[in-house]
């Protein structure tokens, strides 16, 4: 049975059909959809959709509606101009927020892809004394919760003068992470090694084999890793909260929270603009997910071959 990660696998088209072709195919009792099934699914879908549509509705409402907190779930106003005023009206560098998010997310993804492909390749293909012990250590490190290392890491980065720069959020990515190493190793282990052996006979060194033979075949799993790192870094809140304190450096996720907290008790946060920001935070994730769906499936297969059931 295929494995489980956050990546949703693609479901086969038609479950519940008894074997048999054409006219002999019939639906088993357990799979019959009754009107109640449809009613429940419709209601649940609608309920799940409410927060999303509310987000859009608030984003499109006027400043006046926003100030009175008089929002409706179904949009009644269509102030598309909010999508441009958000960059100027809040007094915060919202454009900069977006740019910071893009920089942090992209460089984190680049770092993870580069480093975990190297390390994962080594664990899959190269032989060395002590390798198995090392791999167990890699797996064991996944169990350590981030809160344990958070404080010493902060003190270390503070010592290095990295506070209020992108560095604490990006640099660790260039040293790979255990889960990504594990993914690459599983993926490369499934690629037949005849090609590297042939290349070795032809005199290609280990780095050449990695660079010219294995790396070009790794891109499905590397794409999956890039997507995961991208979405994680894009939505990360705690990291920027710890390390960044000037508006100019904040990514959108932190900037949004900043937008709601800077307004004093006398005035409400500009909820319509906050929701425009929330949409700007959400949309790229939906697009990335949509484009990368099949690579995320690849990742499932990779983990599955490790025996996660």
């Amino acid at each position, binding site marked *: 049975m295929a494995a489980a990660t956050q990546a949703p696998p693609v479901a086969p088209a038609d479950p*519940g059909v*008894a074997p048999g072709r054409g006219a002999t195919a019939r639906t088993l009792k357990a799979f019959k959809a009754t009107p109640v099934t449809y009613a429940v699914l419709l209601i649940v879908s609608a309920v*799940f959709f409410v927060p999303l549509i509310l987000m859009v509705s608030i984003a499109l409402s006027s400043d006046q509606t926003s100030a009175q907190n008089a929002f409706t779930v179904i949009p009644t106003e269509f102030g598309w101009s909010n999508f441009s005023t958000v960059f100027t009206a809040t007094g915060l560098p919202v454009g900069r927020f977006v740019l910071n998010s893009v920089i942090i997310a992209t460089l984190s993804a680049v770092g993870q892809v580069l480093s975990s492909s190297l*390390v994962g390749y080594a664990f899959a293909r190269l*032989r060395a004394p002590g390798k198995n012990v090392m791999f167990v250590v890699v797996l064991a490190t996944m*169990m*350590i919760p981030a809160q344990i290392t958070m404080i010493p890491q902060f003190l270390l980065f503070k010592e290095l003068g990295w506070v209020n720069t992108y560095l604490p959020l990006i640099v660790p990515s260039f*040293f790979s992470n255990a889960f990504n190493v594990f993914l690459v190793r599983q993926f490369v282990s499934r690629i037949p090694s005849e090609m590297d052996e042939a290349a070795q006979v032809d005199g290609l060194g280990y780095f050449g084999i990695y660079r010219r033979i294995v790396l070009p075949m790794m891109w499905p799993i590397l794409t999956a890793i890039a997507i995961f790192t991208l979405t994680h870094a894009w939505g990360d809140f705690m990291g920027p909260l710890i390390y960044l304190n000037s508006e100019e450096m904040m990514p959108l996720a932190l900037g949004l929270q900043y937008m709601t907290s800077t307004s004093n008790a006398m005035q409400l946060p500009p909820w319509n603009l906050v929701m425009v920001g*929330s949409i700007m935070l959400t949309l790229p994730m939906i697009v990335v997910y949509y484009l990368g769906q099949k690579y995320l499936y690849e990742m499932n297969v990779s983990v599955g071959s490790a025996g996660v059931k």
Partner: protein
Amino acid sequence: MATDLGAVLGAARAQGPRRARGRRADRLPRPKLSRRGRTEARFFWLFVSPWLVGFLGFLLGPMIASVYISLTEWDSFTPPVFVGLDNYVQALTGDPVFWQALWNTFYYAAISVPLGLAVGLWLANLLNKRVRGRKFFRTMIYLPTLVPLVATAMVFKMVLAPSGPLNDLLGLVGVEGPNWLLDPLWVKPALIVLSAWGAGSATVLLLSAMNGIPREFYEAAEIDGAGPFRQFWSITFPQITPIIFFNLIMGLIGAFQIFSQVYILTQGGPDNASMMVVPLLFDQAFGFYHFGYASAVAWLLFVVIIGFTALAFRTSRRWVFYETEVR
């Protein structure tokens, strides 16, 4: 972090026999590596050096430092003062907020995780039927999981407002909804409602697991006269217990580390009614610069997480069914 443990579960299982085999094979050529072998080993260490450096610099080093810091009183401006186990004693006996945060976190995890699984299971079972427009329903249920947590928190501030959509919905069935985020009694349920919105990820995983169950089982059951309910409990459920178990472990670990929602929506209030362990740790470390105390709290949280994970594993032998074990 959330994904990580599940992979380890499987990997550790897969690693066991392979390691044993590897050890036996290694033993023969081990005494002396050939020149080629030495080059290969050198390249191995070169290639894994990014991980190794990261491991020493960002994980092992900080972990050791964290143990030491937790035994000191330190604000990072003046030199640390060694105080032994005082911080741990303080958390466990002298700080009522720590116990409250632990209790709140436990309350949140104990309800949100099973609830998320139950909703996921229920929806997956519905979607597993031959429904027209399954793809549409699946998308609608999965979409919320793509919304970043910060955006989710922002919109739930509105959903949970006294005259927000949730209370409107409750009004339809004649219930007067509470002031979710400002009522000490309802603030934790409010956070649980927020977590339930993400039930789509469990749904999709469970659905794909259900798709892998052989049809023959259901055919046989139907011939034997088992009803849909019986079929669910005797076929579907046992077959997907590994995925349920996986989601349980991941969910528990994630729930114990809840932070952003609390920080954005309630700041632990009202009256610490929604104070959780990680927000408490964060406040202590980065608000009050009590790095020693915060490190001790981090280790206590680690112990709690490991404890519950171990407990889940212990019970798993009784209810999680692995087909390969039968073969």
